[in-house]
């Protein structure tokens, strides 16, 4: 008999407020529906009319886990609009913080995935690996979250690493590699954990492309869409885009594990090649700009910011598109055929971030009128 099992909006397996409706036959999921926007934050509305210098600080608050990516991309869009260019050293330090944040986000994901699988020890192991990284970020930026590093034309001078800080980061990278080897090896060779993640939540490449899945979710299905390939900031560095073809939960977890190594490679290169010079350049603020947009590869996938600055230097029409909506939509399809318990893991395996995503706009195609998405409108659709 086909019955509905509603999970959320309040549920211990969901760390953020969204609702999943599973239709199951016995234990097998035959259909799924995901709805979000139960906790609307309205950041885009808040950003409307804010002075451009303050806007990026608000944009950073979109997410705690990838705050640097939101801030950096906001600054990139603003710099594009204003015609400002950051200094070379600042570019390198932005990349450094971004890759450190990517590692901490991926380790957080592995911890959360282990929790959803029900393996508490791996949760603690993942967080043990993450903790020294948080201290390094604190050392480098002065904060464990919301580092506030990029500013228009460069970075905040307090985040300019001293020789001692660089030494500490090198020490962390050296220390993390063997620990990560050991952790990844144990995680991927654990027969019980692998029996849960292998073959469940399969997202085919064609479905990933159809639903515009992005980031590790898409790359685990063989879709090559890493935005870093198009970002000039990443041109000086040699790293590999990890692509896997299985598209199951195991692939999505493994891919993130492997991406941590690539991030470590980039961090080492940043430290080796870090140019001397100022971290903030001279910026001329030319207001009344055209629309500017910027794409960046956040830990969860492609992140998009767009804005316009009016003649008074205030931000207009700020829009943010995060990776989660399309990834969640893909997961609606990926979890069909799973056992109910595995289906929750499948949803979690795209690392959904609802604090990022609860901001969608509804545009009336005929009148062109816009309204902020309210609780009853957050359906994930293609």
């Amino acid at each position: 008999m086909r019955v509905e099992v509603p999970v959320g909006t309040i549920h211990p397996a969901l760390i953020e407020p969204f609702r999943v409706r599973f239709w199951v036959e016995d234990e097998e999921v035959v259909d799924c529906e995901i709805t979000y926007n139960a906790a609307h934050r309205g950041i885009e509305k808040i950003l409307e009319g804010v002075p451009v210098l303050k806007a990026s600080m608000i944009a950073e608050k979109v997410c705690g886990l990838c705050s640097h990516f939101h801030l950096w991309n906001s600054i990139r869009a603003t710099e594009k609009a204003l015609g400002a260019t950051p200094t070379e050293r600042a570019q390198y330090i932005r990349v450094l913080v971004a890759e450190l944040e990517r590692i901490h986000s991926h380790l957080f994901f592995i911890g959360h995935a282990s929790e959803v699988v029900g393996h508490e020890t791996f949760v603690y192991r993942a967080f043990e690996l993450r903790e020294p990284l948080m201290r390094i970020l604190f050392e480098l930026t002065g904060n464990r979250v919301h580092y506030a590093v990029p500013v228009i034309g460069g970075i905040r001078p307090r985040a300019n690493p001293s020789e001692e800080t660089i030494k500490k980061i090198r020490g962390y990278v050296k220390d993390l590699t063997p620990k990560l080897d050991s952790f990844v090896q144990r995680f991927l060779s654990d027969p019980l954990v692998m029996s849960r993640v292998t073959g469940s939540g399969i997202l085919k490449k064609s479905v990933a492309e159809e639903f515009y899945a992005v980031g590790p979710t898409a790359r685990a299905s063989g879709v090559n869409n890493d935005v870093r390939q198009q970002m000039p900031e990443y041109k000086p560095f040699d790293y590999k885009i990890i692509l896997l073809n299985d598209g199951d939960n195991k692939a999505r977890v493994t891919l993130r594990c492997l991406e941590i190594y690539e991030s470590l490679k980039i961090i080492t290169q940043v430290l080796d090649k870090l140019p001397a010079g100022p971290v903030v350049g001279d910026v001329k603020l030319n207001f009344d700009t055209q629309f500017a947009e910027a794409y960046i590869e956040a830990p969860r996938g492609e992140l998009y910011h767009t804005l316009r600055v009016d003649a008074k230097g205030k931000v207009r029409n700020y829009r943010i598109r995060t990776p989660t909506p399309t990834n969640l939509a893909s997961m609606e399809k990926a979890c069909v055929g799973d056992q109910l318990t595995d289906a929750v893991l499948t949803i979690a395996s795209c690392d959904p971030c609802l604090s990022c995503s609860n901001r969608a706009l509804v545009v009336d195609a005929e009148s062109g009128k816009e309204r902020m998405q309210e609780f009853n409108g957050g359906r994930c659709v293609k």
Partner: protein
Amino acid sequence: MILDLILGSVALVCISFAYALIIPGIERKVHARIQNRYGPPLTTPGFWNVLKAFFKQKVTPNSPNPRFYYMFLTIGLLEVPFIVLFSNPIWWGVLGFGTVFAIMGLMKVEEVDYLFIGSFSKSIMSLGMPFPDIVKGAKPAQDRRYFEEISVTRALKMITISSFPVYLALFVPFAVAGSLQIQDVVNMQNPLFSPLSQIPLNSLPQMLSFLKPFAFTLPGVICTIVYFIGYNILTNARPFDIIKSKVDVMEGPMMEYASKWRAVYYVFTGLLSFTLSSIFITIFLGIPLALNAPPMLLLHLLLIPILPILSAILRAFSPVLTFKQIIPISSTASVMAFIALALTLLKF
């Protein structure tokens, strides 16, 4: 004689309850140490937690009949001590209660109890929003199912598929003894408890020299492994806690127990761990919880934490298993138990 029986039973129940309040603390401590944590103090999860829950504000459960919902937990709590009593020398001679069937019957009642508990729980956590579902594009709600109903289905599967090897393993020592009486199984391993024995019951070294535990034989080792799997299944411990898997059905049938009933549930789980450990030590090691033999009693109590500690270790290194994994494990355990039985019948 009857006074001895009553006083002995009261003492055994008191010992069981006292130990039941410590076992969760032992498990949590082991679990925490594996995860590089200190963990809570030994008495906190079992004793102080129960005391705290007992004085929490009373909450009426979402249940079609709260009295029935409470009653089935009470039945569970009351029947589990009888498993300890029936496996004890003072009850061996009473109306044939000291048999493998009496123990298995009560264990089965405990398993079936979850079905009734789950049937009488209708948690609000399983519901959608308390107003019509008007999400754009959302499918209309129909045939919505409570988490507890899913848990009940899972509990039924566990009864029919997963716990079978446990009972088979429990039966093997009785096949070796050629009797259904617990007394005969214990006598086979430990002649001290024979009615004809002249050995004094106060010297531990002397007692141990006569001990020939069934668990140390080849079929015994196999049965011990199967029983250990069964211990985790019957106590709903990870990796076999699918009936209360947090990621989908949360606490399952027990979701609505709050305040003092939550305390009762904590005691019930501790008591179940104690009881299953006690049965193992009595039937597989031949060391009963004998009040008239203090060294044996002490040894029995010292050995009780073995299964909870092993279970805590397993739990620390296991995810929640779904039926995709549980069914093969259960089938393998059944085959192992059949092999042990065959080896026994072949006098291996």
